[in-house]
């Protein structure tokens, strides 16, 4: 008798909840996520302690900082320069190298959310070596940033932002792993749909759009010098959001694989805008500097508030809505 009553109560709560409360749970590349917000690569992500913080801040998934074969100290400071609508960074892919990363991330059991790997190299065969190594760990997916605008020998500065290079790198990596491969592109480029199509054809499971844009430059007029030691850096934050929204909108019409949208997202309303443009998940990076490490939780609450007010119940309902 008691069980039956409990069962009814549960059913009631379930139906009531379904009618009234939106949910943020979603799946992406067959991985279930408690919400569609992902910590972007390169923000924290140097080690597990760093990533755990984003997990505690409410992220639905977290990405490690891109690792390379060799240890890299990166560019000299300043690595970061601010302007009214965002910032520039030129860290130059500082990272302890794949050997250290394999040690650091060998045991991911402390994570409740999926952990995504990211790696960078100058050519397809080095990319393949990295993917082969990362494949052995418990990462939920592997991201290939073919789009960094400020590191010699990597990304755009070594010509990885073309359909041809994308095809070659993704094909080489595809042979080394069955895990979802995410290809991170740069919305600064004119032919992003062709790059994304090449990635899709070569076996990528999703597109991440976008890396930091530009590069840009900030000059301190009082000293007459560029602020960044590397002079130029990738632009992130508020300023790039409309470009990212447009790029994701365009990609959604051209490719079949899902899209992780990111760039300038700092509020729940921004997340919803990007979902409507066609993103299935949304990355957050720079906004941590503005709203703290629990920016994920804050965005989730804002999303739930907005969805409730406007009668939306699930993330899936919102994806691509702007195209209808």
């Amino acid at each position, binding site marked *: 008798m008691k069980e039956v009553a409990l069962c009814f109560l549960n059913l009631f709560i379930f139906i009531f909840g379904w009618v009234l409360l939106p949910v943020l749970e979603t799946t992406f590349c067959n991985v279930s996520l408690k919400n569609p917000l992902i910590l972007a690569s390169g923000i924290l992500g140097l080690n597990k*302690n760093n990533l755990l913080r984003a997990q505690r801040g409410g992220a639905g998934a977290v990405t490690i900082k891109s690792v390379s074969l060799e240890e890299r100290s990166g560019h000299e400071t300043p690595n970061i320069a601010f302007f009214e609508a965002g*910032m520039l960074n030129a860290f130059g892919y500082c990272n302890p190298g794949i050997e250290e990363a394999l040690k650091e991330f060998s045991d991911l059991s402390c994570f409740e959310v999926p952990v995504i790997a990211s790696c960078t190299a100058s050519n397809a065969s080095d990319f393949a070596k990295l993917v082969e190594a990362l494949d052995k760990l418990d990462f939920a997916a592997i991201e290939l940033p073919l789009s960094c605008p400020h590191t010699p020998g990597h990304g755009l500065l070594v010509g990885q932002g073309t359909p041809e290079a994308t095809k070659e790198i993704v094909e080489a990596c595809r042979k080394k792993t069955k895990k979802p491969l995410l290809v991170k592109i740069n919305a600064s480029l004119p032919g992003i749909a062709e790059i994304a199509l090449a990635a899709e054809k070569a076996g990528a499971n999703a597109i991440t759009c976008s890396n930091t844009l530009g590069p840009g430059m900030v000059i301190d007029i009082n000293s007459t*010098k560029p602020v960044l030691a590397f002079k130029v850096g990738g632009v992130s934050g*508020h300023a790039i959001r409309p470009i990212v929204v447009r790029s994701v909108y365009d990609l959604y019409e051209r490719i079949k694989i899902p899209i992780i949208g990111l760039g300038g997202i700092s509020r729940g309303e921004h997340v919803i805008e990007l979902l409507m443009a066609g993103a299935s998940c949304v990355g957050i990076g720079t906004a941590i500097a503005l709203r703290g490490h629990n920016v994920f939780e804050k965005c989730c609450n804002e999303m739930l508030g907005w969805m409730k007010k406007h009668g939306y119940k699930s993330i899936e309902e919102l994806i691509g809505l702007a195209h209808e």
Partner: protein
Amino acid sequence: MNEFAKHKIKEARILKIEQETPTVKTFELGVSLDAVPGQFVMVWLPRVAEKPFTLIKTGNTIAITVKKRGGFTEKLFQLKEGSYLGIRGPYGKGFTWNGVKKACIVAGGIGTAALLRLVEELAKNKASVDFVADFKTKSEILFKERIEKVANLHIITEDGSFGTKGFCPDFLMGFLKKNEYDKLYCCGPELMMVKVLELCKKFDLKAEFAVERYMKCAVGLCGQCCLDEWLVCRDGPVLSSEQLLKSKEFGKFYYLKSGKKVAIQ
């Protein structure tokens, strides 16, 4: 102000340079800034680098005290009055001293700079302060007159050329046995801070430590300055004894410029 714009570089030309010791200089900079004692700024020398320094003075002008260590600080030491520096900040979490009536401050070398404004604030609140300062040798003693004005200063030199000869944690032991403090504050070489933390635990004394880690962004993005789960640029540089007693890395590991984890010697 706009949330991004507040991090923009501010012009902070050098107004005055004072040679404090053979290896330490104080630079007064022409920029107005308010900050809590213990907070720091990123100091930019164009075409060279940008590095963190604690403020020893705030208000209409600010000041930093710098110990010559490597490339950046050597270049700073060559600058003249009128030279250009840029700053951004203040960053981080400073000291807390609400309700503290009797305090013990423990400083090692250049760490004295991080505690200078704190001791002056404590004095303003009429707290009685025992200030134990540890220096290599007599010529490296810092801020003697300024501290003596507001606290009971006890100087220790490693070679015995001034004050008590010896090692600060040993000396401190005697102090903690004789006195009851509301709080202890400490900044110095990490291995010394570890010893002081052990003493605080032994005497069940609440304490705050100003900690150093390699910094790049100072805004909690790059993760470079991590100490366990804390980011020293954002949650520190001042961390409590409760936090540090839980730490697995304090006194043991830090992260190089590449992010590689290495043992502290």
